[in-house]
């Protein structure tokens, strides 16, 4: 009887011990598998838009797609691949650098547009389009102008495939500073180009939308004029931007903000790269509507943007409660400092 009782109690304990030992391993294996699947999906998404001959070269090179940043195709120029900020010139079967042809660019554009260039006129006018997976395709060629405005683009001679890279959790270090009583503060991210402001703002949106220890999950409205934040494909965000997020894809920022306030009643509005006067006015309007704003602006520091018309007034009126300044030292996304509305440093170097 005693033995039976001992076994009865010991068995679950032993099982728990086994579980405790196995679970982290299992989770580790699962995470690895998910990463592998994501990489395979990314590879598939990028391969399917490349001309057959270019696809073969990339397959031969067996690229690490988890580190892939860009693939650059230029008519008559070598095929370039950028992985982890390192550029590589890919060679053909003869060992010489592989030169991209006009036909390959045309074929690639056919695949990118799913044989329907007309469907991407608006995007082409802006010089880029987004494909499945949120990867961005930048194009350049001959621009057709009508009445001082870009009407379309033809004779596309360069294609830049920028692989989407979400950095889940990159906003963790800033979340505690941009929240007060579990509410988001009006926040402006100041960063030079290519310093990770879009990646940061995307993760901030995700965390605010889902909620975490610092903020209660709430509805977030995103105006994504250049499909950078959500990386929308057919209107659906390809990046994780949270469960309470409503996104307006390819919509002008000023109009989009007003539209979202009226239609989706967001608690937080997020926009990337503000600058125009119209956008500043819409931003002020949104702040007066009770929405919390998260925006980004190009600049190297708070002093520099304080001189910029439009933004200057917002800073003087202390509209923003937090400023996050990024820089490129070390790696993209490095936070140089976080400041409050008076310009007092809350954290940073």
């Amino acid at each position, binding site marked *: 009887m005693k033995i039976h009782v001992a076994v009865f109690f010991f068995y679950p304990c032993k099982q728990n011990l086994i579980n405790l030992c196995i679970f982290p391993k299992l989770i580790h294996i699962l995470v690895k598998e998910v990463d592998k699947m994501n990489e395979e999906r990314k590879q598939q998404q990028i391969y399917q838009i490349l001309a057959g001959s270019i696809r073969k070269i990339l397959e031969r090179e067996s690229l690490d797609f988890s580190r892939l940043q860009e693939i650059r195709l230029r008519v008559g120029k070598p095929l370039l691949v950028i992985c982890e900020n390192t550029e590589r010139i890919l060679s053909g079967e003869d060992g010489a650098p592989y030169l991209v042809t006009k036909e390959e660019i045309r074929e690639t554009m*056919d695949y990118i547009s*799913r*044989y329907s260039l007309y*469907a991407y*006129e608006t995007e082409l006018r802006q010089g880029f389009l987004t494909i499945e997976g949120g990867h961005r395709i930048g194009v350049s060629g001959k621009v057709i102008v009508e009445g001082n405005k870009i009407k379309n683009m033809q004779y596309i001679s360069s294609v830049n495939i920028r692989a989407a890279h979400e950095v889940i959790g990159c906003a963790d270090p800033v979340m505690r500073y941009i929240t007060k009583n579990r509410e988001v503060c009006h926040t402006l991210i100041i960063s030079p180009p290519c310093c990770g402001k879009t990646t940061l703002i995307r993760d901030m949106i995700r965390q605010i939308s889902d909620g975490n220890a610092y903020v209660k999950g709430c509805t977030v409205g995103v105006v994504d004029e250049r499909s950078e934040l959500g990386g929308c494909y057919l209107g659906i965000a390809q990046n994780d931007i949270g469960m309470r997020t409503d996104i307006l894809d390819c919509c002008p920022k000023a109009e989009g903000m007003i539209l979202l306030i009226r239609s989706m009643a967001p608690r937080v509005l997020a926009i990337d790269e503000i600058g125009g006067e119209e956008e500043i006015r819409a931003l002020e309007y949104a702040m007066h509507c009770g929405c919390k704003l998260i925006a980004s602006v190009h600049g190297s520091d708070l002093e520099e943007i304080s001189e910029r018309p439009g933004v200057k007034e917002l800073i003087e009126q202390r509209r923003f409660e937090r400023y996050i300044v990024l820089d490129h030292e070390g790696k993209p996304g490095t936070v140089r400092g976080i400041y409050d509305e008076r310009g007092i440093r809350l954290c940073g170097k």
Partner: protein
Amino acid sequence: MIGSILVLTATSGAGFLYGMEQQDYLEKLLYIRHIIYMLKGELEYTKAPLGEVFGQAAVRVREPYKGWLHGLERQVERRKEDEFFKIWMRSIDRDLHTLHLKSEHVIQLKELGSCLGRMDSTSESLHLKLYVERLELEIEKVRESLSAKKRIGNCLGVMGGIFLIVILI
């Protein structure tokens, strides 16, 4: 006597069937026009990529056009051909051969694919309109000759039957 009646019925029936075939052919052309109008509408209104346009139209049409449009949708989404024109040509040969269209009509339909997906939406729409106009001319031709052909079919059927009966007797 019975044999004569049977022969006459058979030849008259053949003549009548010929007339029906002509009518059927006209309906096929009208249906193709209807499909092209549908594609044009989808393209102008939604400005969606061709694959989606074909997919949307496919759910609203009957076989074999449904299979043709679904096939086109699949091929476009698969992105295995370097040109859309090849997909278009192949799909017509594969899926629409059961329609037994005249070679000139098949050529016209195939030519339509040469410019699809390559231009801006206005030009795409105009290109489809141009095809519809050409098709309407063909429809008009078929319609004009339809009643005459029907009559000839019926007459020839009866006359042929009588002729056969006379010879057999």
